[in-house]
C-alpha cells in the first residue's frame, strides 16, 4: 500500500465513520459540541500533515472543560454557555500535532463536580451498558463515548477520580497520570492541586499512546514536572518479579459481591502469570473523602470566583451600579446546586477562624495519606490493586438527593488524587451485565510500569465475561 495515499485517505474516512457513530450515539447525551464541518476540517488537516504522527488520524473526544479555539467550552455550566476560548489547551495542541482529530467536546458534571454526570446544565449522560444507569462522573461523557465505540480514546479530567470511576462504570480503560506529568494549561481549574488531565482508552494501548503524546513538561504550567514525556511501555510477557499490594481498607465486608468477585478473579490471574499478591494496609484511607471534600472545594471556591458576571454569564445588572447584585444574580443563577454547595463549603473552610480547623488540618491529613503510599512502595510493593468503585454503575437519580452518598462513590479513588499518584481503572469483568473495574496504583512517575502491567492483565482477563 502506498503510505502516502493511505494516509491522505485515513483522516477523511475515519471522520466519516466517526460522524456516523456520533449521530448514532446521540441518545446517550454524551456530547455537547460537535459538527460535520469541524470534523471534516480536522480530517483535511491531518491528511495534509507531512508525517502521520503518533496518533495518525485517531479521533479523540475532549471533556468540555478543556479549552479549544474551534468549539465552545462550557464546563456544562450556564455561566459559560457560549464561551469560546481564544487559545487551545496545551494537551489539545499536542494531540493535534501528533495527528489526532478533535472529534467532539463531551458532557460532564458542571465544572467537573460530581460522580454521575447528572449535574450537567445540559442534561444527564446515559451509561451505554444500561441507559437507566449513570456513566459515572464527572467525565461521564468521555467515558460513555469510548464505551459506545464512537472514539477509541478521549480526554477527561480528574480531581478526585473523575476518570477512573466513570471508566469503571462504563467498562473502559481510564488512566490518571502523576500530578505534574501532564500540563493543566487550558484545563478549566476545579481543584488546582489535584486536577489532572486524564485519558480514556478502548484499550490499554490506546490510552498509553494518548497519554504519551500529552505528557511532558510545559512552560505554561509551573506545576508540570521536568521529566521527559512518558513512553508507550514495551509489552510484558508476564508479571514475574512484581509484587502487588491489596490494601485491606479497600476490601470492606460490605463491598458489592460482584465487585469483590471480579477483584478476587483479577488477583488470581496476577498470581497465575507470575505476580506476587500480598495484603497491605493504608491506614489513613478512611480520611480521604472528608479530606478531599475540604481541599477541593476550597480551591474551587477561589477558581470559580472569576465567573462574576463582569465577563462571563448572562450579564444581569441589578439596580443601577449595584455590583453586588450583579455577583449575586450571576452566580446564583449561573451555577447549579452542586457547584454552589461546593463554593459555600470551600469559602467556609478558608474563613477566618475555621482555616486551621479545616483547611490546614486537611493538608496535614493529605500528607499522612501520601506517606501511607510511600511506605508501601518503599517496602517493596510495586503496584497496588483495589476495586475502582464499591459498586457497579448505579441508577440515575439514586444519589442525587444525598450528596454524601454521591461523594462516597469516590471512596476508592480519592486517596491517589490527594497523593498525586498515577492510577488507572481497567475493566476486569461484568457483574449482572455491568462492567467492573480494577484499579492499579503506582509510585510517582511509574506510569510506564503501571500501563505495562495493565497490558498483561488485559491480555489475561475477559472483561466482557460475568464473574461470580
Amino acid at each position, binding site marked *: 500500500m502506498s503510505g502516502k495515499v493511505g494516509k491522505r485517505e485515513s483522516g477523511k474516512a475515519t471522520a466519516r465513520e466517526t460522524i456516523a457513530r456520533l449521530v448514532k450515539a446521540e441518545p446517550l447525551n454524551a456530547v455537547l459540541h460537535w459538527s460535520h464541518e469541524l470534523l471534516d476540517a480536522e480530517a483535511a488537516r491531518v491528511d495534509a500533515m507531512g508525517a502521520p504522527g503518533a496518533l495518525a488520524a485517531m479521533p479523540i473526544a475532549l471533556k468540555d472543560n478543556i*479549552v479549544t479555539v474551534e468549539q465552545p467550552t462550557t464546563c456544562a455550566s450556564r455561566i459559560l454557555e457560549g464561551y469560546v*476560548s481564544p487559545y487551545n489547551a496545551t494537551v489539545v495542541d499536542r494531540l493535534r500535532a501528533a495527528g489526532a482529530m478533535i472529534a467532539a467536546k463531551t458532557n460532564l458534571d458542571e465544572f467537573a463536580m460530581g460522580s454521575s454526570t447528572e449535574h450537567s446544565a445540559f442534561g444527564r449522560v446515559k451509561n451505554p451498558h444500561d441507559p437507566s444507569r449513570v456513566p459515572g462522573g464527572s467525565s461521564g461523557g468521555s467515558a460513555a463515548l469510548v464505551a459506545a465505540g464512537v472514539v477509541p480514546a478521549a480526554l477527561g479530567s480528574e480531581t478526585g477520580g473523575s476518570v477512573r470511576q466513570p471508566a469503571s462504570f462504563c467498562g473502559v480503560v481510564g488512566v490518571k497520570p502523576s500530578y505534574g506529568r501532564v500540563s493543566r494549561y487550558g484545563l478549566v481549574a476545579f481543584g488546582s492541586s489535584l486536577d489532572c488531565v486524564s485519558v480514556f482508552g478502548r484499550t490499554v494501548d490506546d490510552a498509553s499512546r494518548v497519554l504519551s503524546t500529552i505528557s511532558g513538561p510545559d512552560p*505554561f504550567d509551573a506545576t508540570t514536572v521536568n521529566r521527559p514525556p512518558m513512553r508507550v511501555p514495551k509489552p510484558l510477557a508476564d508479571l514475574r518479579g512484581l509484587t502487588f499490594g491489596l490494601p485491606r481498607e479497600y476490601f470492606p465486608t460490605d463491598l458489592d459481591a460482584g465487585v469483590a468477585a471480579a477483584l478476587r478473579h483479577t488477583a488470581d490471574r496476577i498470581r497465575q502469570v507470575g505476580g506476587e499478591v500480598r495484603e497491605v494496609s493504608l491506614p489513613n484511607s478512611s480520611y480521604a473523602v472528608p479530606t478531599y471534600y475540604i481541599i477541593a472545594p476550597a480551591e474551587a471556591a*477561589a477558581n470559580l470566583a472569576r465567573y*462574576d458576571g463582569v465577563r462571563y454569564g448572562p450579564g444581569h445588572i441589578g439596580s443601577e*451600579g449595584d455590583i453586588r447584585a450583579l455577583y449575586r444574580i450571576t452566580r446564583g443563577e449561573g451555577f447549579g446546586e452542586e457547584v454552589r454547595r461546593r463554593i459555600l463549603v470551600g*469559602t467556609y473552610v*478558608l474563613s*477566618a477562624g475555621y482555616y486551621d480547623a479545616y483547611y490546614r488540618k486537611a493538608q496535614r491529613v493529605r500528607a499522612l495519606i501520601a506517606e501511607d503510599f510511600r511506605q508501601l512502595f518503599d517496602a517493596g510493593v510495586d503496584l497496588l490493586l483495589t476495586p475502582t468503585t464499591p459498586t457497579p454503575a448505579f441508577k440515575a437519580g439514586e444519589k442525587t438527593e444525598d450528596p454524601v452518598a454521591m461523594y462516597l462513590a469516590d471512596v476508592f479513588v480519592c486517596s491517589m488524587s490527594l497523593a498525586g499518584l498515577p492510577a488507572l481503572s481497567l475493566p476486569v469483568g461484568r457483574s449482572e451485565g455491568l462492567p467492573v473495574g480494577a484499579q492499579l496504583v503506582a509510585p510517582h512517575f511509574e506510569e510506564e510500569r503501571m500501563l505495562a502491567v495493565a497490558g498483561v492483565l488485559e491480555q489475561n482477563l475477559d472483561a466482557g465475561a460475568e464473574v461470580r
Partner: protein
Amino acid sequence: MAWETVIGLEVHVQLRTRTKMFCGNRTAFGDPPNTNVCPVCLGLPGALPVPNAEAIRLAVRGAIALGCTIHETSVFARKNYFYPDLPKGYQISQFDRPLATGGSVTFESPDRGRMRVGITRLHVEEDAGKLLHDRYPGKTAVDLNRAGTPLAEIVSEPDLRSPAEARAYLTVLRQILIYAGVSECSMEQGSLRVDANLSIRPGGVTKLGTKTEVKNMNSFANVERALEAERERQVALVESGRRVEQVTLLFNAATGQVKPTRSKEESHDYRYFPDPDLPPLVLAAAWIAEQRVALPELPDAKRGRLENEYALSAQDARVLTAEASLADYFESVVEAGADPKTSANWVMGDVMTSYNETGSFPVSPPRLAALLALVREGIVSHQAAKRVYTELAMFTDEEPQAAAGRLGLVQVSDQVALSGWVDEVLAAHPNEVARFRGGEAKLMAFFVGQVMKRSKGKADPKGVQPVLQERLLQTA
C-alpha cells in the same frame, strides 16, 4: 493634651520588568485600554500563572538593599475578594511566607535627626486592573492592562512619628529602590503607591491606638498633607470624647481633606491560602549571594565615600548622591582630571540645571574636565566658561578650546592689549581716577569691571589688576 502620632507605611512599587508577573505581556504605561492582555492576566478559564524570574530578581535586590533577610522558600498565596478590576476574583500575593522580612531604612528625620525605620516585610504580588469611571457616561469601564503587573509591597514598622518624618522616609526609600534598579518609583505613573496607617496616643503611652488607613495620595507632599489631615481628624475626634474607628479614608488633594470610605465593606476576610498553581518559590543561597554582590553602591555608602574620597562637605555629597547618575557623572569628571571641589560646584550648578531639564548629560565628563582645565590655566574665565558650557551642550562634537576660540572667549593676558584697554578705561573715567587717587581704594573693582566690559570678557582679570595698579600709581 500632647498626642503622639504613630505612622506605618505600606508602599507598593512596580518592579522594573519588561513583562508582567505571571505572563509575557508588556507592562507599558499609557497604552490603549486592554491591549496588553492575554489569557493569563485576563484570568481566562484554564490559564495558569508562571512566575517572572526577572521580577523575583528585582524584588530580591530591593529586599537586600533594604537590609532584609531573604527567605530561601517563600509561598505565593491567593488573596480572595470580588472587584471588577480583579479578573480572577483573587490576587496572587504572598501572605504568611513572604519573600523577605526584617530590614530597615536609615534616614534623616526632620524631627529627630538620623534614625532607622524597621521594614517588616517585602513580598511580591500582582497588580489589579483599573476602573475607568469617566470614559462612558453613567458606566464604569475596566482596563486590564495593569492587571498582573509585578509589584513589591514594602511594609514598614509603625516607627514614624510625624507626617513630615513619613515623607522623609519615603524620599529615602524611593532613592534606595531607584539606586538598586528595582523600580522607577514614579507616583505620577503609578509605579509607586503609598497606603498609610496612622493612629494617635497620649504622650508616654506605649499601647497603640486604633489605626486608620489613608489612601489615594499622588505625591509625597500629599502623603504628608493627608497624614496631617488625618492626624487632626483623629485628635479632634478623641478630644471631643468620641472614638477613632478602624476605617479606610481617601485623600482629596483638591480639598486637602480625608474622607472615610463606607466602613462596613472594608471588613474583608481575604481567605488567604497557598496558590496551588505555583510551587513554593525556592531560591538557592548561592544565587541570593550573587544578587547581594551584584547590588550597586547604595545612597548612604556613596554619600560617605564621596565625602571621604573627594573631601566634599556633607551637604555637597548629599546633593551629588540624590541620584546615582549625578554622582557617577561627578566621579567621571574628576577621573578625567578635574579638581573635585570645582567639579562638584559645576555638577551641582550648570550640569544639574541641564540634567533636570533634559534628564541627560549633554556634555561628556572628559569635555567638562577639559573646560575646567581651561579655567584653571587661565585660558577662559569662569564667567566665559559658563557660556562655553552652553555651547558644548548644543554642539556635542566641539572641544572646549575650539568653542572658546570660536566665541572669542579665550582670555587675553598679553600686556600690550591689557594696557590698551586699561588706558581707554582710565581716559573715559577721569572723575573716578581722581577719587581713587584721593584714597577711594575700593574703586579698583570698578576699574577691573570696566576693563572686563571693554574687553568683552576676554581680559584675564588676574592680569588686569597689576596693569591698573601700575598705571594709576604711575601718573600720580
